[in-house]
Protein backbone atom coordinates (compact mmCIF):
# COMPACT_ATOMS: atom_id res chain seq x y z
CA UNK A 1 0.00 0.00 0.00
CA UNK A 2 1.43 3.39 -0.93
CA UNK A 3 1.91 6.17 1.58
CA UNK A 4 1.85 9.88 1.20
CA UNK A 5 5.51 10.44 2.06
CA UNK A 6 8.23 7.95 1.17
CA UNK A 7 10.88 7.15 3.71
CA UNK A 8 14.20 8.58 2.58
CA UNK A 9 16.00 5.35 3.48
CA UNK A 10 13.72 3.41 1.14
CA UNK A 11 14.64 5.76 -1.70
CA UNK A 12 18.33 5.40 -0.84
CA UNK A 13 17.96 1.62 -0.75
CA UNK A 14 16.32 1.60 -4.18
CA UNK A 15 19.19 3.67 -5.59
CA UNK A 16 21.80 1.46 -3.90
CA UNK A 17 20.22 -1.63 -5.43
CA UNK A 18 20.04 0.04 -8.84
CA UNK A 19 23.76 0.74 -8.73
CA UNK A 20 24.21 -3.05 -8.73
CA UNK A 21 21.62 -3.57 -11.42
CA UNK A 22 19.10 -4.86 -8.88
CA UNK A 23 15.58 -3.85 -7.95
CA UNK A 24 13.38 -4.16 -4.87
CA UNK A 25 11.16 -6.84 -6.36
CA UNK A 26 14.05 -8.83 -7.79
CA UNK A 27 13.53 -7.81 -11.44
CA UNK A 28 16.35 -6.93 -13.79
CA UNK A 29 16.66 -3.40 -15.21
CA UNK A 30 14.97 -4.43 -18.45
CA UNK A 31 12.21 -6.61 -17.06
CA UNK A 32 8.52 -5.82 -16.94
CA UNK A 33 6.25 -7.03 -14.17
CA UNK A 34 3.68 -9.66 -15.22
CA UNK A 35 1.28 -8.15 -17.77
CA UNK A 36 -2.25 -9.29 -18.49
CA UNK A 37 -4.71 -7.89 -21.01
CA UNK A 38 -8.41 -8.69 -20.85
CA UNK A 39 -10.30 -7.32 -23.85
CA UNK A 40 -14.04 -6.89 -23.74
CA UNK A 41 -14.17 -6.30 -19.99
CA UNK A 42 -17.02 -3.78 -20.25
CA UNK A 43 -19.98 -4.85 -22.37
CA UNK A 44 -21.56 -1.39 -22.47
CA UNK A 45 -18.51 0.06 -24.23
CA UNK A 46 -17.94 -0.34 -27.95
CA UNK A 47 -14.50 -1.68 -27.13
CA UNK A 48 -12.69 -2.15 -23.83
CA UNK A 49 -9.70 -3.72 -22.15
CA UNK A 50 -8.51 -4.21 -18.59
CA UNK A 51 -4.72 -4.19 -18.32
CA UNK A 52 -2.64 -5.18 -15.32
CA UNK A 53 1.06 -4.54 -15.05
CA UNK A 54 2.08 -5.97 -11.68
CA UNK A 55 -0.28 -4.36 -9.18
CA UNK A 56 -1.20 -1.48 -11.48
CA UNK A 57 -4.62 -1.90 -13.07
CA UNK A 58 -6.07 0.34 -15.78
CA UNK A 59 -9.35 -0.02 -17.64
CA UNK A 60 -10.04 1.61 -20.99
CA UNK A 61 -13.41 1.90 -22.70
CA UNK A 62 -14.13 3.11 -26.23
CA UNK A 63 -17.38 4.81 -27.14
CA UNK A 64 -18.25 5.81 -30.69
CA UNK A 65 -21.00 8.31 -31.36
CA UNK A 66 -22.06 10.29 -34.41
CA UNK A 67 -21.12 13.96 -34.20
CA UNK A 68 -19.90 16.90 -36.19
CA UNK A 69 -16.36 17.03 -37.57
CA UNK A 70 -14.10 19.95 -36.67
CA UNK A 71 -14.41 22.89 -39.07
CA UNK A 72 -10.76 22.68 -40.15
CA UNK A 73 -10.91 18.92 -40.83
CA UNK A 74 -14.30 18.34 -42.46
CA UNK A 75 -13.31 14.93 -43.83
CA UNK A 76 -12.12 13.41 -40.64
CA UNK A 77 -13.66 11.84 -37.59
CA UNK A 78 -12.76 13.00 -34.10
CA UNK A 79 -10.58 11.19 -31.60
CA UNK A 80 -10.49 12.30 -28.00
CA UNK A 81 -8.65 10.72 -25.08
CA UNK A 82 -9.35 11.25 -21.41
CA UNK A 83 -7.65 9.58 -18.45
CA UNK A 84 -9.06 9.66 -14.94
CA UNK A 85 -6.94 9.00 -11.87
CA UNK A 86 -10.01 8.06 -9.90
CA UNK A 87 -9.76 8.38 -6.13
CA UNK A 88 -10.00 4.70 -5.42
CA UNK A 89 -6.74 4.08 -7.23
CA UNK A 90 -4.37 5.76 -4.79
CA UNK A 91 -4.18 7.25 -1.30
CA UNK A 92 -2.64 10.40 -2.74
CA UNK A 93 -5.76 11.51 -4.59
CA UNK A 94 -6.82 15.10 -4.12
CA UNK A 95 -10.38 16.12 -4.94
CA UNK A 96 -10.81 18.84 -7.54
CA UNK A 97 -9.85 19.39 -11.17
CA UNK A 98 -7.72 16.74 -12.93
CA UNK A 99 -4.18 16.59 -11.58
CA UNK A 100 -1.31 17.34 -13.94
CA UNK A 101 -0.34 13.66 -13.74
CA UNK A 102 -3.69 12.58 -15.15
CA UNK A 103 -3.58 15.17 -17.88
CA UNK A 104 -0.09 14.08 -18.87
CA UNK A 105 -1.19 10.43 -19.11
CA UNK A 106 -4.15 11.45 -21.31
CA UNK A 107 -2.01 13.47 -23.65
CA UNK A 108 0.90 11.04 -23.91
CA UNK A 109 -1.45 8.15 -24.68
CA UNK A 110 -3.34 10.29 -27.17
CA UNK A 111 -0.16 11.49 -28.85
CA UNK A 112 1.05 7.97 -29.61
CA UNK A 113 -2.32 6.81 -30.91
CA UNK A 114 -2.63 9.85 -33.14
CA UNK A 115 0.95 9.94 -34.39
CA UNK A 116 0.88 6.26 -35.25
CA UNK A 117 -2.37 6.77 -37.17
CA UNK A 118 -3.76 3.88 -35.16
CA UNK A 119 -7.16 4.50 -36.66
CA UNK A 120 -7.71 6.20 -39.99
CA UNK A 121 -9.73 9.23 -39.02
CA UNK A 122 -10.90 9.82 -42.60
CA UNK A 123 -12.65 6.47 -42.46
CA UNK A 124 -14.64 7.77 -39.54
CA UNK A 125 -16.16 10.46 -41.75
CA UNK A 126 -19.81 9.84 -42.68
CA UNK A 127 -20.80 13.01 -44.52
CA UNK A 128 -17.98 15.51 -45.10
CA UNK A 129 -18.45 18.69 -43.14
CA UNK A 130 -21.62 17.43 -41.50
CA UNK A 131 -21.42 14.06 -39.83
CA UNK A 132 -18.59 11.92 -38.59
CA UNK A 133 -17.89 9.46 -35.81
CA UNK A 134 -16.47 10.74 -32.57
CA UNK A 135 -14.25 8.14 -30.96
CA UNK A 136 -13.96 8.60 -27.20
CA UNK A 137 -11.09 6.81 -25.51
CA UNK A 138 -11.76 6.87 -21.78
CA UNK A 139 -9.13 5.58 -19.41
CA UNK A 140 -9.90 4.72 -15.79
CA UNK A 141 -6.97 4.04 -13.49
CA UNK A 142 -8.18 1.52 -10.91
CA UNK A 143 -5.00 0.74 -8.98
CA UNK A 144 -1.88 2.93 -9.13
CA UNK A 145 1.32 1.01 -8.47
CA UNK A 146 3.50 2.83 -10.94
CA UNK A 147 3.85 3.09 -14.72
CA UNK A 148 0.40 4.37 -15.56
CA UNK A 149 1.43 5.47 -19.05
CA UNK A 150 2.31 1.99 -20.31
CA UNK A 151 -0.75 0.40 -18.74
CA UNK A 152 -3.11 3.12 -19.97
CA UNK A 153 -1.68 3.05 -23.46
CA UNK A 154 -1.82 -0.72 -23.71
CA UNK A 155 -5.41 -0.67 -22.46
CA UNK A 156 -6.40 2.01 -24.97
CA UNK A 157 -4.78 0.32 -27.96
CA UNK A 158 -6.15 -3.06 -26.99
CA UNK A 159 -9.62 -1.58 -26.55
CA UNK A 160 -9.41 0.01 -30.00
CA UNK A 161 -8.17 -3.26 -31.49
CA UNK A 162 -11.32 -4.97 -30.22
CA UNK A 163 -13.82 -2.20 -30.90
CA UNK A 164 -16.97 -2.27 -33.00
CA UNK A 165 -18.46 0.76 -34.71
CA UNK A 166 -22.13 0.84 -33.61
CA UNK A 167 -23.34 1.84 -37.05
CA UNK A 168 -26.59 -0.09 -36.86
CA UNK A 169 -27.55 1.25 -33.45
CA UNK A 170 -27.08 4.82 -34.62
CA UNK A 171 -28.76 4.08 -37.96
CA UNK A 172 -25.72 5.08 -39.99
CA UNK A 173 -25.40 1.73 -41.76
CA UNK A 174 -27.12 -1.65 -42.01
CA UNK A 175 -24.82 -3.42 -39.59
CA UNK A 176 -22.16 -2.82 -36.96
CA UNK A 177 -18.61 -3.40 -38.15
CA UNK A 178 -15.20 -3.72 -36.49
CA UNK A 179 -13.25 -0.50 -36.04
CA UNK A 180 -10.37 -0.53 -38.52
CA UNK A 181 -7.08 -0.40 -36.61
CA UNK A 182 -4.07 0.02 -38.89
CA UNK A 183 -1.19 0.51 -36.50
CA UNK A 184 -0.38 -0.60 -33.00
CA UNK A 185 1.74 1.88 -31.04
CA UNK A 186 3.20 0.52 -27.81
CA UNK A 187 4.56 2.82 -25.11
CA UNK A 188 7.49 1.86 -22.89
CA UNK A 189 8.44 3.91 -19.87
CA UNK A 190 11.83 4.01 -18.21
CA UNK A 191 13.15 5.85 -15.16
CA UNK A 192 16.64 6.81 -14.13
CA UNK A 193 17.79 5.40 -10.78
CA UNK A 194 21.29 6.79 -10.36
CA UNK A 195 23.27 5.60 -13.38
CA UNK A 196 20.90 2.77 -14.18
CA UNK A 197 17.87 3.18 -16.41
CA UNK A 198 15.15 0.68 -15.58
CA UNK A 199 11.95 -0.16 -17.43
CA UNK A 200 8.44 -0.33 -15.92
CA UNK A 201 8.89 1.56 -12.65
CA UNK A 202 6.86 0.69 -9.56
CA UNK A 203 5.30 3.46 -7.49
CA UNK A 204 8.29 3.51 -5.12
CA UNK A 205 10.74 3.56 -8.02
CA UNK A 206 8.90 6.53 -9.55
CA UNK A 207 9.26 8.34 -6.23
CA UNK A 208 12.99 7.60 -6.19
CA UNK A 209 13.47 8.39 -9.88
CA UNK A 210 15.68 11.11 -11.29
CA UNK A 211 13.88 11.47 -14.59
CA UNK A 212 11.47 9.41 -16.62
CA UNK A 213 11.29 8.79 -20.35
CA UNK A 214 8.56 7.17 -22.43
CA UNK A 215 9.07 5.93 -25.98
CA UNK A 216 6.24 4.85 -28.28
CA UNK A 217 7.03 2.59 -31.23
CA UNK A 218 4.91 1.01 -33.92
CA UNK A 219 5.07 -2.32 -35.71
CA UNK A 220 6.76 -0.78 -38.76
CA UNK A 221 9.97 0.15 -36.95
CA UNK A 222 8.99 3.78 -36.36
CA UNK A 223 9.31 5.83 -33.20
CA UNK A 224 6.03 7.71 -33.04
CA UNK A 225 6.14 9.59 -29.78
CA UNK A 226 8.39 10.39 -26.83
CA UNK A 227 7.94 12.11 -23.51
CA UNK A 228 10.49 12.97 -20.88
CA UNK A 229 8.96 13.55 -17.46
CA UNK A 230 9.86 14.09 -13.81
CA UNK A 231 12.95 15.95 -12.69
CA UNK A 232 16.24 14.69 -14.13
CA UNK A 233 18.21 14.38 -17.35
CA UNK A 234 19.08 11.89 -20.11
CA UNK A 235 22.01 11.97 -22.50
CA UNK A 236 21.48 11.29 -26.23
CA UNK A 237 23.13 7.90 -25.72
CA UNK A 238 20.66 7.13 -22.95
CA UNK A 239 17.86 8.00 -25.33
CA UNK A 240 19.22 5.74 -28.09
CA UNK A 241 19.51 2.91 -25.61
CA UNK A 242 15.94 3.18 -24.36
CA UNK A 243 14.63 3.46 -27.91
CA UNK A 244 16.32 0.18 -28.78
CA UNK A 245 14.84 -1.45 -25.67
CA UNK A 246 11.42 0.02 -26.41
CA UNK A 247 11.34 -1.66 -29.82
CA UNK A 248 12.07 -5.04 -28.19
CA UNK A 249 9.40 -4.70 -25.53
CA UNK A 250 7.01 -3.25 -28.11
CA UNK A 251 7.02 -6.42 -30.16
CA UNK A 252 6.01 -8.53 -27.16
CA UNK A 253 3.35 -6.19 -25.88
CA UNK A 254 1.84 -5.69 -29.31
CA UNK A 255 0.91 -9.36 -29.41
CA UNK A 256 -0.87 -8.92 -26.08
CA UNK A 257 -2.74 -5.85 -27.31
CA UNK A 258 -3.99 -7.71 -30.35
CA UNK A 259 -4.70 -11.05 -28.76
CA UNK A 260 -5.37 -10.44 -25.10
CA UNK A 261 -4.40 -12.51 -22.01
CA UNK A 262 -0.76 -13.00 -21.05
Amino acid sequence: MSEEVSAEILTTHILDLAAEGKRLDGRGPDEYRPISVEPGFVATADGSALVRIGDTAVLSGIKLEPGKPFADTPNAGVLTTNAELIPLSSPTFEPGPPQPGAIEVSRVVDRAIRAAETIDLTRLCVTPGEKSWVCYVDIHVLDHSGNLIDAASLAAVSALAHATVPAKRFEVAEADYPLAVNHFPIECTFVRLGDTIVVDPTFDEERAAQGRITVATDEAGQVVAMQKGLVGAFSPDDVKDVVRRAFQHGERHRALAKGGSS
Partner: protein
Amino acid sequence: MGSVGAKEVPVLLSPEGLRIDGRKLDELRPIRLQVGTLHNADGSAFVEWGANKVMAAVYGPREVHPRHLQQNNKAVIQCKYNMAAFAVDERKRPGLDRRSQEISKVIGEAFESVVFAEEYPRTSIDIYIEVLQANAGTRCAGLVAASMALADAGIPMVDLLPAVAVGKVAGKIALDLKKEEDNFGEADLPMALVPQSGRLVLLQMEGHMTEEELAQALDLGVQGCREIYEKMKQALRERYSTGPVGGSS
Protein backbone atom coordinates in the same frame (compact mmCIF):
# COMPACT_ATOMS: atom_id res chain seq x y z
CA MET B 1 -32.61 6.52 -17.06
CA GLY B 2 -32.72 5.54 -20.72
CA SER B 3 -34.87 6.70 -23.57
CA VAL B 4 -38.31 5.25 -23.24
CA GLY B 5 -39.93 6.48 -26.42
CA ALA B 6 -37.31 5.27 -28.87
CA LYS B 7 -37.91 1.54 -28.66
CA GLU B 8 -40.74 -0.93 -28.55
CA VAL B 9 -41.82 -1.93 -25.08
CA PRO B 10 -40.55 -5.46 -24.47
CA VAL B 11 -42.67 -8.15 -22.90
CA LEU B 12 -41.74 -7.89 -19.24
CA LEU B 13 -43.73 -10.79 -17.88
CA SER B 14 -44.72 -13.98 -19.63
CA PRO B 15 -48.06 -15.75 -19.04
CA GLU B 16 -46.13 -18.28 -16.91
CA GLY B 17 -44.93 -15.48 -14.64
CA LEU B 18 -41.38 -15.41 -15.98
CA ARG B 19 -39.55 -12.16 -16.53
CA ILE B 20 -37.66 -10.94 -19.55
CA ASP B 21 -34.56 -12.90 -18.53
CA GLY B 22 -36.45 -15.96 -17.36
CA ARG B 23 -36.40 -15.12 -13.66
CA LYS B 24 -39.33 -15.49 -11.28
CA LEU B 25 -40.67 -12.43 -9.54
CA ASP B 26 -38.73 -13.08 -6.34
CA GLU B 27 -35.46 -14.13 -7.93
CA LEU B 28 -32.18 -12.21 -7.79
CA ARG B 29 -29.84 -11.87 -10.76
CA PRO B 30 -26.59 -13.87 -10.52
CA ILE B 31 -24.19 -12.13 -8.11
CA ARG B 32 -20.43 -12.64 -7.81
CA LEU B 33 -18.57 -10.93 -4.96
CA GLN B 34 -14.83 -10.54 -4.47
CA VAL B 35 -13.04 -8.89 -1.57
CA GLY B 36 -9.57 -7.36 -1.48
CA THR B 37 -9.31 -6.71 -5.20
CA LEU B 38 -7.22 -3.52 -5.03
CA HIS B 39 -3.67 -3.21 -3.79
CA ASN B 40 -3.62 0.42 -2.62
CA ALA B 41 -6.90 0.79 -0.79
CA ASP B 42 -7.27 -0.11 2.90
CA GLY B 43 -10.29 -2.19 1.90
CA SER B 44 -11.81 -3.04 -1.46
CA ALA B 45 -14.40 -5.20 -3.17
CA PHE B 46 -15.64 -5.95 -6.69
CA VAL B 47 -19.27 -6.86 -7.40
CA GLU B 48 -20.64 -8.41 -10.56
CA TRP B 49 -24.41 -8.30 -10.25
CA GLY B 50 -26.33 -9.29 -13.35
CA ALA B 51 -24.64 -7.13 -15.97
CA ASN B 52 -23.43 -4.59 -13.41
CA LYS B 53 -19.72 -4.31 -12.62
CA VAL B 54 -18.97 -2.14 -9.63
CA MET B 55 -15.71 -1.57 -7.75
CA ALA B 56 -15.53 -0.06 -4.28
CA ALA B 57 -12.58 1.10 -2.20
CA VAL B 58 -12.21 2.43 1.33
CA TYR B 59 -9.33 4.59 2.55
CA GLY B 60 -9.24 5.18 6.26
CA PRO B 61 -9.58 6.01 8.92
CA ARG B 62 -7.03 8.62 7.89
CA GLU B 63 -6.26 12.31 8.33
CA VAL B 64 -8.96 14.59 6.95
CA HIS B 65 -8.32 16.60 3.76
CA PRO B 66 -9.27 19.45 3.71
CA ARG B 67 -8.64 19.94 7.42
CA HIS B 68 -11.62 22.17 8.08
CA LEU B 69 -13.98 19.26 7.52
CA GLN B 70 -12.56 17.51 10.60
CA GLN B 71 -15.00 16.66 13.41
CA ASN B 72 -13.77 16.67 17.00
CA ASN B 73 -15.77 13.71 18.25
CA LYS B 74 -15.94 11.31 15.33
CA ALA B 75 -14.72 10.33 11.89
CA VAL B 76 -16.12 12.13 8.88
CA ILE B 77 -17.56 9.66 6.40
CA GLN B 78 -17.20 10.84 2.82
CA CYS B 79 -18.75 8.82 0.05
CA LYS B 80 -18.23 9.37 -3.66
CA TYR B 81 -20.23 7.39 -6.21
CA ASN B 82 -19.18 7.78 -9.83
CA MET B 83 -19.97 6.19 -13.16
CA ALA B 84 -17.30 5.62 -15.78
CA ALA B 85 -17.93 7.33 -19.11
CA PHE B 86 -18.25 3.95 -20.82
CA ALA B 87 -20.46 2.33 -18.18
CA VAL B 88 -23.72 3.18 -19.89
CA ASP B 89 -25.01 2.88 -23.46
CA GLU B 90 -24.90 6.60 -24.10
CA ARG B 91 -21.47 7.85 -23.03
CA LYS B 92 -21.56 9.84 -19.83
CA ARG B 93 -19.34 12.91 -19.70
CA PRO B 94 -16.71 12.55 -16.97
CA GLY B 95 -17.15 14.76 -13.95
CA LEU B 96 -19.65 15.42 -11.21
CA ASP B 97 -23.31 15.22 -12.13
CA ARG B 98 -26.32 15.73 -9.94
CA ARG B 99 -27.47 12.14 -10.02
CA SER B 100 -24.07 10.93 -8.78
CA GLN B 101 -24.01 13.57 -6.09
CA GLU B 102 -27.42 12.54 -4.79
CA ILE B 103 -26.50 8.88 -4.77
CA SER B 104 -23.23 9.68 -3.00
CA LYS B 105 -25.21 11.46 -0.31
CA VAL B 106 -27.80 8.75 0.37
CA ILE B 107 -25.20 5.99 0.37
CA GLY B 108 -22.92 8.02 2.66
CA GLU B 109 -25.81 8.55 5.06
CA ALA B 110 -26.59 4.84 5.05
CA PHE B 111 -23.06 4.10 6.21
CA GLU B 112 -23.07 6.90 8.73
CA SER B 113 -26.00 5.11 10.31
CA VAL B 114 -23.99 1.94 10.95
CA VAL B 115 -20.31 2.82 11.21
CA PHE B 116 -18.94 3.38 14.72
CA ALA B 117 -17.46 6.71 13.72
CA GLU B 118 -16.91 7.87 17.32
CA GLU B 119 -14.04 5.43 17.61
CA TYR B 120 -11.92 7.59 15.29
CA PRO B 121 -12.29 11.29 16.08
CA ARG B 122 -10.70 13.83 13.71
CA THR B 123 -10.27 11.34 10.93
CA SER B 124 -11.94 10.64 7.64
CA ILE B 125 -13.29 7.38 6.27
CA ASP B 126 -13.42 7.76 2.49
CA ILE B 127 -15.64 5.46 0.48
CA TYR B 128 -15.28 5.39 -3.30
CA ILE B 129 -17.71 3.58 -5.54
CA GLU B 130 -16.95 3.29 -9.23
CA VAL B 131 -19.50 1.85 -11.65
CA LEU B 132 -17.61 0.29 -14.55
CA GLN B 133 -20.61 -1.24 -16.28
CA ALA B 134 -24.25 -0.40 -15.50
CA ASN B 135 -27.47 -2.37 -15.85
CA ALA B 136 -29.90 -0.99 -13.26
CA GLY B 137 -29.46 -1.24 -9.51
CA THR B 138 -26.00 0.31 -9.49
CA ARG B 139 -26.53 2.14 -6.23
CA CYS B 140 -27.45 -1.12 -4.53
CA ALA B 141 -24.52 -2.95 -6.08
CA GLY B 142 -22.31 -0.05 -5.02
CA LEU B 143 -23.60 -0.16 -1.47
CA VAL B 144 -22.96 -3.88 -1.23
CA ALA B 145 -19.44 -3.45 -2.63
CA ALA B 146 -18.70 -0.55 -0.29
CA SER B 147 -20.03 -2.48 2.67
CA MET B 148 -17.62 -5.32 2.04
CA ALA B 149 -14.79 -2.88 1.37
CA LEU B 150 -15.44 -1.34 4.82
CA ALA B 151 -15.31 -4.79 6.41
CA ASP B 152 -12.10 -5.48 4.49
CA ALA B 153 -10.66 -2.24 5.89
CA GLY B 154 -11.43 -3.35 9.45
CA ILE B 155 -13.85 -0.43 10.04
CA PRO B 156 -16.18 -1.31 12.93
CA MET B 157 -19.86 -1.35 12.02
CA VAL B 158 -23.14 -2.48 13.45
CA ASP B 159 -23.52 -4.85 10.50
CA LEU B 160 -22.91 -5.32 6.80
CA LEU B 161 -25.42 -3.54 4.55
CA PRO B 162 -27.08 -5.73 1.96
CA ALA B 163 -29.10 -3.70 -0.54
CA VAL B 164 -31.47 -4.40 -3.40
CA ALA B 165 -34.08 -2.63 -5.53
CA VAL B 166 -37.65 -3.86 -5.79
CA GLY B 167 -39.88 -2.75 -8.64
CA LYS B 168 -43.13 -3.33 -10.41
CA VAL B 169 -43.27 -4.93 -13.83
CA ALA B 170 -46.47 -5.59 -15.71
CA GLY B 171 -48.36 -4.80 -12.52
CA LYS B 172 -46.49 -7.34 -10.37
CA ILE B 173 -43.99 -6.62 -7.60
CA ALA B 174 -40.59 -7.91 -8.70
CA LEU B 175 -37.22 -8.23 -6.97
CA ASP B 176 -34.00 -6.81 -8.43
CA LEU B 177 -34.92 -5.04 -11.65
CA LYS B 178 -32.62 -5.19 -14.63
CA LYS B 179 -32.25 -2.38 -17.14
CA GLU B 180 -35.30 -3.01 -19.35
CA GLU B 181 -37.48 -3.58 -16.29
CA ASP B 182 -36.21 -0.34 -14.80
CA ASN B 183 -36.83 1.60 -18.02
CA PHE B 184 -40.27 0.25 -18.77
CA GLY B 185 -41.48 -0.75 -15.30
CA GLU B 186 -43.91 1.15 -13.12
CA ALA B 187 -41.90 1.66 -9.93
CA ASP B 188 -38.42 1.41 -8.45
CA LEU B 189 -37.64 1.05 -4.75
CA PRO B 190 -33.99 0.67 -3.74
CA MET B 191 -33.33 -0.17 -0.10
CA ALA B 192 -30.54 -1.19 2.26
CA LEU B 193 -31.08 -3.31 5.37
CA VAL B 194 -29.24 -3.59 8.69
CA PRO B 195 -29.79 -7.33 9.27
CA GLN B 196 -28.92 -7.10 12.96
CA SER B 197 -31.80 -4.71 13.68
CA GLY B 198 -34.07 -5.42 10.74
CA ARG B 199 -34.16 -1.70 9.90
CA LEU B 200 -33.62 0.14 6.65
CA VAL B 201 -30.95 2.82 6.30
CA LEU B 202 -31.45 3.57 2.63
CA LEU B 203 -34.87 3.92 1.08
CA GLN B 204 -35.95 5.66 -2.07
CA MET B 205 -38.95 5.21 -4.28
CA GLU B 206 -40.13 6.43 -7.64
CA GLY B 207 -43.25 5.41 -9.57
CA HIS B 208 -46.75 4.23 -8.65
CA MET B 209 -47.62 1.77 -5.91
CA THR B 210 -50.69 1.23 -3.77
CA GLU B 211 -50.26 0.85 -0.04
CA GLU B 212 -50.57 -2.90 -0.33
CA GLU B 213 -48.08 -3.07 -3.14
CA LEU B 214 -45.64 -1.01 -1.11
CA ALA B 215 -45.98 -3.32 1.88
CA GLN B 216 -45.44 -6.30 -0.37
CA ALA B 217 -42.42 -4.63 -1.96
CA LEU B 218 -40.83 -3.87 1.40
CA ASP B 219 -41.21 -7.48 2.52
CA LEU B 220 -39.81 -8.79 -0.75
CA GLY B 221 -36.91 -6.36 -0.50
CA VAL B 222 -36.04 -7.43 3.02
CA GLN B 223 -36.14 -11.06 1.91
CA GLY B 224 -33.82 -10.24 -0.98
CA CYS B 225 -31.48 -8.36 1.35
CA ARG B 226 -31.21 -11.34 3.68
CA GLU B 227 -30.28 -13.55 0.74
CA ILE B 228 -27.60 -11.09 -0.34
CA TYR B 229 -26.34 -10.83 3.24
CA GLU B 230 -25.49 -14.54 3.22
CA LYS B 231 -23.55 -14.11 -0.02
CA MET B 232 -21.62 -11.16 1.44
CA LYS B 233 -20.64 -13.10 4.53
CA GLN B 234 -19.56 -16.02 2.39
CA ALA B 235 -17.36 -13.81 0.22
CA LEU B 236 -15.70 -12.29 3.29
CA ARG B 237 -15.04 -15.72 4.77
CA GLU B 238 -13.50 -16.90 1.54
CA ARG B 239 -11.13 -13.97 1.52
CA TYR B 240 -9.55 -15.15 4.73
CA SER B 241 -9.51 -18.83 4.22
CA THR B 242 -7.61 -18.65 0.97
CA GLY B 243 -5.65 -15.44 1.34
CA PRO B 244 -5.97 -12.10 -0.51
CA VAL B 245 -7.49 -12.17 -3.98
CA GLY B 246 -4.94 -11.05 -6.50
CA GLY B 247 -7.30 -8.64 -8.14
CA SER B 248 -8.57 -10.94 -10.83
CA SER B 249 -12.11 -10.48 -11.99
